[in-house]
């Protein structure tokens, strides 16, 4: 029966080519637009470290003076050097890393490459195991190298290709800002999306090319970049960054186990109280411990425009579907005579319904396929856009399946009402009016 209904459906669709094309194009446009925007939204709101992110937390304390104090406001988004170092050395979590962003002048040994500026991350050693960074060659630095302010550097795969032709460069020397560093590790490609650990920089940018111990970076006066927020007498200049009342560092911890999370939160409150007793903190203890995904949420990393575009596309799809329902209904009702004959000849309501549903399903399938092509085209267009996330807009297998199900499901749903309405006819009346 299915084959016969399909044949009927195709015949009926062929009879009215322009209308069929109109319905298919409307669905395809709606699906194409929705899938493009949904894919972008999906990519941007994804989990940067699947499997690990649930154990990562971003401790926050409030070291500011009473100036501008309002109850219930969140603590500053970063930590001061003093608090960062205190929390780092307290080692109350399973792993902890204190870090900040920067940029360094790289002076290649080759005469044919001009010195250039590279984005850098100055961090303590746990950064690598905590965020599970993949190493192509060598190893991360250790805590003792942190403490010794060792002149060591881990570089990205891209930088290794640029400077050392992609060969194992461990043990080589890299000059940066007139200081010599020993390459101890080369990273493999790594691009967490969003780049969660420092949201002051472009949230969807690529990972830095140079990694240096935080203590070393301070020792050789590497420039800090990102946000610096000061209060009181804080000037925010780089030279006094350790002592001035400014927040400019990110502190991340890894905690395995929910009971330990509560304990760490208590520890942060306790720490704040202790600092208040010492006179460093003035505000009532305000400690927060958002998880990685909560932190992304608080900071609204997914651009507002992307959300707006998704709603717009879904609205557009809705209009396209209403349009299709209307056209399909008109079409089915016009076939009342034919349906009346079939009913009179013994086809049950169910069978007529199935036949009409197959017809709408065919349109949905065609619309879905064209829509999928449009979605690929749409994503290609997104990749041509100037935004930093542009390059990430790729269709995944999951999204591909969703597109297809959405297309067929939507049209079947759109076909339900017309098919049901068309079934309601009285065969005798239809035959008579002929």
């Amino acid at each position, binding site marked *: 029966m299915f084959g016969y209904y399909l044949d009927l459906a195709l015949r009926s669709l062929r009879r009215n080519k322009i209308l069929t094309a109109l319905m298919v194009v409307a669905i395809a446009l709606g699906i194409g637009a929705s899938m493009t925007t949904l894919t972008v939204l999906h990519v941007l709101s994804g989990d940067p470290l699947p499997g690990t992110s649930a154990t990562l937390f971003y401790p926050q304390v409030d070291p500011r003076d009473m100036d*501008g104090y309002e109850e219930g406001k969140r603590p500053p988004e970063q930590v001061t050097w003093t608090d960062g170092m205190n929390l780092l050395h307290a080692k109350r979590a399973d792993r902890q890393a204190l870090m900040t962003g920067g940029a360094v002048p790289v002076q290649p040994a080759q005469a044919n490459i001009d010195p250039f*500026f590279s984005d850098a991350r100055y961090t303590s050693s746990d950064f690598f195991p905590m965020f599970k960074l993949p190493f192509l060659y060598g190893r991360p630095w250790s805590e003792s190298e942190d403490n010794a302010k060792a002149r060591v550097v881990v570089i990205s795969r891209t930088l290794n290709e640029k400077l050392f032709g992609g060969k194992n460069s461990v043990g080589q020397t890299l000059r940066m800002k*007139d200081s010599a560093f020993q390459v101890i590790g080369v990273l493999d490609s790594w691009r967490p999306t969003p780049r969660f650990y420092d949201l002051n920089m472009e949230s969807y940018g690529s990972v830095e090319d140079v990694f240096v111990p935080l203590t070393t970076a301070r020792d050789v006066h590497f420039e800090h970049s990102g946000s610096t927020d000061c209060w009181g007498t804080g000037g925010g200049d780089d030279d*006094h960054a350790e002592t001035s009342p400014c927040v400019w560092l990110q502190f991340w911890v890894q905690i395995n186990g929910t009971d330990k999370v509560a304990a760490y939160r208590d520890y942060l409150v306790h720490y704040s109280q202790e600092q208040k007793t010492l006179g460093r903190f003035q505000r009532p203890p305000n400690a927060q411990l958002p998880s990685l995904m909560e932190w992304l949420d608080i900071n609204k990393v997914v651009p*507002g425009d992307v959300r*707006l575009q998704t709603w*717009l596309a879904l609205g557009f799809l809705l209009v396209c579907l209403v*349009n299709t329902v209307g056209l399909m209904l008109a079409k089915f009702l016009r076939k009342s005579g034919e349906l009346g004959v079939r009913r009179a000849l013994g086809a049950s309501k169910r069978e007529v319904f199935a036949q009409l549903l197959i017809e709408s399903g065919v349109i949905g399938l065609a619309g879905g396929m064209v829509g999928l092509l449009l979605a690929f085209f749409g994503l290609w267009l997104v990749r041509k856009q100037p935004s930093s996330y542009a390059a990430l807009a790729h269709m995944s297998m999951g999204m591909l399946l969703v597109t297809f199900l959405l297309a067929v499901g939507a049209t079947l749903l759109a076909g339900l009402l017309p098919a049901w309405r068309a079934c309601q006819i009285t065969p005798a009346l239809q035959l008579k009016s002929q």
Partner: protein
Amino acid sequence: MDILPILSTLRRHKTTAFLVIVEIALTCAIVCNAVFIINQRIDRIHMQSGVDEQHLLHIALTNIGVTKDDKARRAEDLAALQQVPGVVSVASVNQVPFGNSSSNGSIKLDPKQRLATLNATDYFGENVTQTLGTQLIAGRELHADDYMDMDQVVSAAAAKDAKGIPHVTVITEKLAHRLWPGQSALGKQVYMSDFGFTVVGVVKELIRPSIWDDSAASYSMVLPIRVANNEYIVRVDDPKNRERVLKAAVAKLKEINPHRIVLKQHLLSNMREDFFQNDRAMTGLLVAVCTALLVVTALGIVGLGSFWVAQRRRQIGVRRALGATRRNILHYFQTENFLLATIGIGVGMVLAYGINLLLMVHYELPRLPAIYFPVGALLLWTIGQLAVLGPAMRAAAVPPVVATRSV
């Protein structure tokens, strides 16, 4: 034209009529809001910067090694840049309009105030307003004897020594207006972390380097502090010479001190383009979706119209045979479409208002101006009439003889 027969016909096609109304309503609601957003973005793209964009260049460098004699080097750079043919004026600055990196501070009107009044950006650098070409509308520009060096200001601030800190400032008209509505700002005091500054001049406009909130985009102050950040703005005599001057200026700077890297070299007009590129992309996308929506809706009306005409061929024939003119038939379908569109637009307006309320809450968009409602209605009426014209003309062309034929 009698609309009662039309209404009675529509009652027989309740579902279809309902769908047309829903489609028109949704299109109306989405298009009204999308066009509103488009207009907002276009306003943003055309935001006034208050500086002479067509004559300005921006160059930023960074030293490779650690340097000590920053001030001497700045003087050397400035003198060399001034010598480049085509250069009118040069300034060593901390930030530039559309540069995206900025130095901002909280302002108070009373040092005892607990919460800051607002957050404004601070432009530093001798000659910065003159080089940028801002328009002074009251008071005076900052003088050479107002200026102090950045490193001294920093140590004075740390020592809470007010003498080591400049005490005058030039602010924008919008900031003056926000702080002292209806009064002259000249001679008034603003406070930044306990230090008072007297407003001595007001400029027409000077945009912030990074804009989070459009309503605060003009909250800028110029402080008389000299900086040596390796960041320069250059004003040229003729926009035609910009590329040539930029190239010569960069070459000159590298020649003086090759131990540094050029981070940025831009025409300010290109920086503006880059600054608003996301808004431009969003505008393009919204225009495309609006067009597609209107086309889909129009084609839907054409499709349904055609069906109805085909369905009612006999009925039309009978009416024609009974004496209705072609014009009567044409008007019938046009009126029918007008009725459906009107109901759709009515519902659409309510929906548009609702969507706007949501956008106001979630995207900090302003309220939809009332003018959008009549304009949107007119647009959809026009599209509806144009779309139904084809099917209606075909209906009018049905000959009366159809009435006598059996199928």
